[in-house]
């Protein structure tokens, strides 16, 4: 047996005197109870938003894309802004489940389940926008390359937009598999505790007959590793390819080589902010403060200040290079971003993404829950503006001054965006009700190394001298 030891500098990942049984009880029991009044209110509001979104989309499909505010000069507006925004949010889940797994970050176990769910819902929301942006949405299958009866008509493989179709759909598939495979042992736990016949059947079906044998776990572990290996490049590739949608062009403000890594950093930034928003609420409502601890929140805030600063370096690099390039078009594009008619969007982006996250350098603020909650929303406002700045303020003054324009969205565009919030939260409410929001099996995995009560027993290891400690543990 490998020694369960962890340094005193690490905070416990599970607070309180938890046993395996208590962990199951704490996380599974909310699923077995009737949801509270707040759940019904929230769910109902989400449904209304979703309905309004569906109506807005219906309006757009029925009357055509002309009901949106986009025009010949600004061909991409709120739709693509929202697409990129949602895809970006969808990055945290896979980062947490894949990259943090590879980096052996134990704290991921408290937050990965909810983050992965959020990823999947966010990618579902994102996918709506390019589809309905097509206008004639019934022709959407034309983006899929398959041997067809349309003669030699294939999609344009040279187009970054087509790469995006592949990137997003692959990402969605792998994220879903990852999330679901993690859920299997937990579904079996719910099944084993189920009191009603229907619940036993339903969760039994969902758990694929998991019995928790050593072989089950062995296969589960190898699958996790394979999926983590597949997802790691995907975390980078998805937003890289989204950035190619812009950077492969010759439009000043879009064509810049730093876009791929900077989009990825920004995506992780906004994804973690969304995870914070959701988990601060979830831990409170479902009383999961002992599993999603202040330490978890602080760790995520560290990721936010890191990625926010990376994004900041990228913004300043872009700005500097626009001047340094001595290309007048680049210089003007950035000049107009800063002092042109859309100045407010540039400054909103700079303030929310670069300036205010710097407050997270202070430990007190990283561990302050109301402050974190507000910041998590500020960051996502900032990241929305980032995409708006990139898209609209690079397009509205093109090479031909005669076609310069000013773009504002119309109600179906705004309604569409609101509708995706409805979709997102409808899914999330259902998830929080029927699924274990914290990965039970994975918490048990770290409990004896990082649980508060177990960590107290490690003091005797810390008292040993190094020689003694090495001598006792050097037989592997």
């Amino acid at each position: 047996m490998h020694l369960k030891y962890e340094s005193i500098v690490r905070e416990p990942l599970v607070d309180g005197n938890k046993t395996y049984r208590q962990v199951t009880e704490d996380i599974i029991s909310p699923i077995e109870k009737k949801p509270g009044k707040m759940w019904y209110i929230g769910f109902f509001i989400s449904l209304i938003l979703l309905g309004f979104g569906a109506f807005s989309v219906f309006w757009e499909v029925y009357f055509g894309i002309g009901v949106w505010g986009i025009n010949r000069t600004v061909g991409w507006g709120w739709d693509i802004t929202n697409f990129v925004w949602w895809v970006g949010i969808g990055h945290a889940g896979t980062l947490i489940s894949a990259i943090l797994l590879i980096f052996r970050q134990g704290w991921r176990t408290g937050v990965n389940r909810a983050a992965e769910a959020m990823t999947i819902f966010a990618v579902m929301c994102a996918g709506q926008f390019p589809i309905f942006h097509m206008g004639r949405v019934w022709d959407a299958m034309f983006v899929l390359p398959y041997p067809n009866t349309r003669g030699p008509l294939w999609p344009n493989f040279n187009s970054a937009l087509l790469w995006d179709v592949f990137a997003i759909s692959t990402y969605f598939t792998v994220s879903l598999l990852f999330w679901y495979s993690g859920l299997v042992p937990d579904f079996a736990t719910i099944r084993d505790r189920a009191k009603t016949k229907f619940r036993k059947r339903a969760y039994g079906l969902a758990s694929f007959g998991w019995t928790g044998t050593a072989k089950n776990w062995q296969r589960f572990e190898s699958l996790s590793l394979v999926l983590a290996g597949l997802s790691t490049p995907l975390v980078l590739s998805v937003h890289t390819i989204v950035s190619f949608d812009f950077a492969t062009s010759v439009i000043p403000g879009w064509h810049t080589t730093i876009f791929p890594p900077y989009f990825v950093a920004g995506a992780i930034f906004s994804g973690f902010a969304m995870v914070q928003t959701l988990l601060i609420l979830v831990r409170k409502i479902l009383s999961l403060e002992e599993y999603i601890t202040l330490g978890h929140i602080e760790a995520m805030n560290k990721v936010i200040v890191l990625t926010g600063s990376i994004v900041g370096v990228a913004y300043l690099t872009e700005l500097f290079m626009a001047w340094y390039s001595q290309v007048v078009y680049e210089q003007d594009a950035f000049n107009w971003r800063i002092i042109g008619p859309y100045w407010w969007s540039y400054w909103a982006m700079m303030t929310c993404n670069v300036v205010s996250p710097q407050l997270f350098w202070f430990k007190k603020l990283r561990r302050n829950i109301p402050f974190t909650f507000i910041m998590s929303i500020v960051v996502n406002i900032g990241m929305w503006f980032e995409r708006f700045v990139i898209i609209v303020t690079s397009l509205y003054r093109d090479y031909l001054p005669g076609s310069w324009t000013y773009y504002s969205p119309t109600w179906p565009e705004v309604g569409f965006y609101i509708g995706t919030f409805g979709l997102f939260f409808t899914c999330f409410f259902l998830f929080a009700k029927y699924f274990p929001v914290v990965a039970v099996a994975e918490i048990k995995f770290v409990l004896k190394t990082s649980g508060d009560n177990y960590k107290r027993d490690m003091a005797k290891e810390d008292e040993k001298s190094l020689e003694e400690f090495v001598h006792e543990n050097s037989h592997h």
Partner: protein
Amino acid sequence: MNDRFEVPARLRSTSLLLIGVGVLALIIAFFTLMGSHSTDADHTRFWAGLLHNSVYFAFIAIISVFIQAASSLAHGGWIVAYRRVPEAIGANAWIFGSIAALVVILTILVFKDHHGHNPIYHWVHPDGDKILEGKSAFLNKGMVIGFTVVTVALWGFFGRKFRSLSIAQESAAKNSTKGYFKFMIWAALFLVVFALTMMSTTPWIWIMSIDAHWYSTLFSWYVFASSLVAGMSMILLWVVYLKNNGNLSIVNKEHIHDLGKFMFAISVFWTYLWFAQYMLIWYANIPEETTYFITRQHGPYSILFYGGFIINFCMPIIILMSRPSKRNYFTVTTMALIIIFGHWLDFYQMMMPGPIGEHWTIGWYEIGLLCGFVGLMIFTVSNTLSKASLIPHNNPLLKETVIHIS
């Protein structure tokens, strides 16, 4: 537990021999390349060779400081078993930084061809070039030398500070975490410095400004990735050497496996940035930007362009992919040597096409200088390593690192 390192006589004499080769190459070059029968091309080769080697090794040294900062902020326990190695390399960052700074400054101030131009840094004399005149608010002697001096001073300071903080922890009370958290504050400060130097300005002024018209926003991050993988490999070489020497008894295959993983992962990351920069410029096909890659991909540099890709991407990904190869001392050591040489070539192809033009050579001079810098690295780092315990006693993560599983 043998945690003291005494520089073996053989290592010392090898390092002195290598330094000797480097100095000899420099002296011979001074009399031939800079001699009375030499051409402008010879002069350029002299300065460019020095610039290439000194900048590369300064970056490798500062990467060790960065790795300490990043891993301690992330509470990384994996590196603690051998953290004296990056500490010792980082503590000598001031030496390699100063050499690079000196070479950059001399190249700017002293070097001229017979027309009075500067063939390496064209911006020193814009001579009516509209674009270079436009850039002159940034690319001018005062600004570049100022940035260089401040950067190197800060790097040197942090490199030494980190080591002294870490050694101070040895004499702290048992299980005291005060020093540990104090280190984190300095590490966070360093990351700010690092963002403003290595991740942005330093590669612009030292390397990108050689092709003074050309620009790429990604450039510094690309240079960072190149240096990072070389710096990681350098750490691995020291760890394996010390292990073979009978030191670092708490280091085992788990720790070697970690370093192998990083060499693999950062090689892939480097390729990612390589591809991002290349593909976007190729796809957009704007002449001002493609000129950079046209001179490298076609003509005499193409062997470096494709060869570098094979050495720095294909070899690491194929050879280091499997678990056993990352746990094999011979494989990782060989790969580390290959990676360090591969990125030395990468720096060469970044820096030479501008000043040298078509007739590049990697000959006695370039290899001689490389030997000299390697010798200096061995000499200085081994010296520093011998000055303190190789095991960072009292580090709160030390016991974790003993039972670490990769």
